[in-house]
């Protein structure tokens, strides 16, 4: 009898153990609220999970103007860049600037030095920059004069020039700064020598303060690695319930997902287009739109390393009408140069409800190609452009910027490597792109 009871309790215990395992497994694998889906081989991991607005709006380049008309350029990632940037953040005034000065003063300081000039990625008001950089709490008024550069004057009287280079406008804020000693703290040999272009070059009108490499530049292309896209994994980031999204396998290898409301097209190369129609609502504050864009990028694969805001277009339909939408374009840097093509690599349209449109042109970059080639100098390129446009009797608009970049192909287009290009920008946002090796036009 005792033996039978012992057997029965053992069997009961075994049954209970089995039942608890079964119930746990059922909850884990079959619960509609716990299923997480398969993990896969996935390349587009979050590169910069902690990225914030300050990082997206840090200077595109910093130019140290040394005495004797020498200029050194520092780009994000270069030794010395962080030192100069942190120095600026520590010493920038938290107030609005009041004293307007002649733009000629800025030009003179550039030549005489010592000074450090910060070329900002986009033209915004000084208050917007202060809020984005955490120099004052976000949410306050955003109106103040626009700037696209500022310049720390390191000789007496020390202070900061706030510059709207596009409008040739400048304000000075006198402030005690570290002296020119900061330039002595830069790592030895850091920075690339650059020269300032004249404002008139063979009939082409150029903005002030455009700096290009001083000597011959050797550049390789960027080799591309084979794409390893996991479409399912990527789609999970875009749909609240990915199991409701149906899949369309397109003839070019792209895959389109839709849940009947939002749509996501993924290309094998890593590019994507996403739309989620939403009512526009009221217009967003610029910093709020930027925060939404950054938060979206963080939760949808992560922004690439070296990301920078390049353009912001509130109410983008051009009619002046309030659309409640803001377009934001971002670039990212590789080997110290931005990547862009006819479109920017990351473009978002933001409304009050969130992101309504997002395109990403992405390539898996393996590293520089083995062979370096000398690129056209800016002067040679401008001479060629002046000659060709002159022969074609085309008017060349005033150029607001000229810089080297890597050329991104069109959305979904195949490419084996990315070539270096010269990008010529106009004040209205137009871009002329030329192959930096051959000088051949690539797009406009």
């Amino acid at each position, binding site marked *: 009898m005792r033996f039978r009871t*012992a057997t029965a*309790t*053992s069997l*009961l*215990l075994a049954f*209970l*153990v089995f*039942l*608890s395992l079964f*119930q*746990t497994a*059922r*909850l884990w694998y079959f*619960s*509609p*609220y716990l299923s997480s889906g398969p993990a896969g081989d996935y390349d587009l991991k979050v590169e910069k999970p902690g990225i914030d607005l300050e990082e997206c709006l840090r200077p595109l380049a910093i130019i140290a103007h040394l005495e004797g008309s020498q200029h050194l350029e520092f780009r994000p990632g270069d030794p010395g860049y962080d030192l100069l940037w942190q120095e600026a953040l520590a010493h920038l005034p938290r107030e609005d600037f009041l004293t307007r000065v002649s733009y000629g003063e800025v030009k003179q300081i550039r030549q005489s030095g010592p000074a450090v000039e910060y070329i900002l990625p986009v033209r915004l008001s000084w208050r917007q920059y202060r809020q984005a950089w955490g120099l004052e709490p976000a949410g306050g008024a955003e109106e103040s004069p626009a700037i696209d550069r500022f310049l720390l004057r390191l000789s007496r009287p020390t202070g900061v020039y706030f510059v709207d280079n596009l409008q040739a406008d400048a304000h000075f804020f006198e402030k005690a700064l570290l002296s020119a000693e900061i330039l002595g703290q830069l790592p030895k040999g850091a920075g690339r020598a650059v020269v300032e272009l004249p404002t008139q070059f063979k009939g082409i009108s150029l903005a002030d303060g455009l700096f290009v490499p001083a000597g011959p530049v050797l550049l390789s292309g960027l080799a591309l690695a084979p794409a390893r896209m996991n479409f399912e994994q990527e789609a999970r980031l875009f749909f609240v319930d990915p*199991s*409701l999204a*149906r*899949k*369309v*396998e*397109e*003839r070019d290898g792209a895959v*389109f997902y839709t*849940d*009947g*409301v939002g749509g996501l097209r993924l290309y094998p190369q890593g590019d994507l287009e996403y739309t989620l129609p939403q009512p526009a609502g009221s217009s967003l504050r610029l910093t709020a739109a930027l925060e939404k864009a950054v938060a979206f990028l963080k939760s949808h694969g992560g922004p690439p390393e070296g990301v920078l805001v390049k353009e912001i277009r509130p109410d983008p339909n051009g009619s002046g009408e309030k659309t409640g939408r803001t377009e934001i374009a971002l670039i990212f840097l590789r080997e110290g140069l931005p990547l862009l093509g006819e479109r920017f690599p990351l473009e978002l349209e933001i409304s009050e409800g969130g992101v309504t449109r997002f395109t990403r042109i992405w390539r898996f970059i393996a590293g520089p190609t083995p062979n370096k080639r000398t690129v056209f100098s800016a002067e040679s390129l401008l001479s060629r452009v002046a000659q060709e446009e002159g022969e074609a009797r085309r008017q060349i608009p005033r150029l607001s910027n000229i810089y080297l970049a890597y050329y991104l192909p069109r959305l979904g287009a195949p490419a084996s490597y990315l070539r270096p290009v010269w990008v010529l920008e106009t004040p209205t946002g137009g871009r002329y792109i030329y192959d930096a090796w051959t000088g051949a036009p690539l797009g406009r």
Partner: protein
Amino acid sequence: MDWSRAKVILILAFSLLNIFLGVLTYSNNQRYYERWAVPTAAEVRNLENQLKTLGVTMAGTWPLRAAPLPFLLVKASPVPADEVARKVFGLNVPGIKQPNGEKIYSDGQQTLLVTEAGIIRYHREGPAKPAGGKAPEKGQVKTEAETVLQRRGLLPGARLDYIHQDEERGRTTVRYSQVYEGLEIFSSEAWFEFSANGLEEYRERWLVPLGFTGEKRLLVSPVVALARLLQRPDVFPGDDKVIESITVGYYSAIYDARQWEATPVWRVRFKSGKSLYLNAYTGEPEKETP
């Protein structure tokens, strides 16, 4: 160690654990199934009253719910454009224009368009039959349509959806849709319009079902979906006041793609022939088509 005492303690512990897991499973399932619960008679009555305020009535019966369904994988049916053109124009196939990959044949009296996505559109040129002309008889139209389908080779899997006589225009339309595993693919259709002169217009898009794909999911009840839709009365077609039927099937836009997934939908068909397609997973309207 007193093994029998240890066993009693373990039995008690595992019993408690199992009760906890059981309650968790039950509450999870309750939350999940609540969205798809079969509506009560009172809910149906309530919906009918709401529809009445919009002047909409239900002529058919309410399907309360359907079995869980997965997505359906489909692809476009390749259309041999030249062969179809020979059947339409006989030996004198006119020259073709090919804008955007489409093939357009026209002899001035008849026009045929065939797309790469497998869509066929045919219409006869010339003045429309004057208003008030007698619409062809349903039986006659059905026979003529079936003859065309036979020549096209579409009869297997084709089911007569409706025949509609429009006496005002003197036209009779007939629509066939595709059936796969007992479920209609609403996106697949062969649509005819006849006048007393014969076939005036023909539209065809016929998909190739490749099989079910993904997990079976519960479908939202059409009563719940329609009740939700009433929050957006603009979705109801203005002149369609009588719902003739509500049926479950598959629907998707036609893509110029290799293959794609069609989603289960509830089709709300109005007496006028117009339809609303409600995503059977979410209840959201998919698209309104004639």
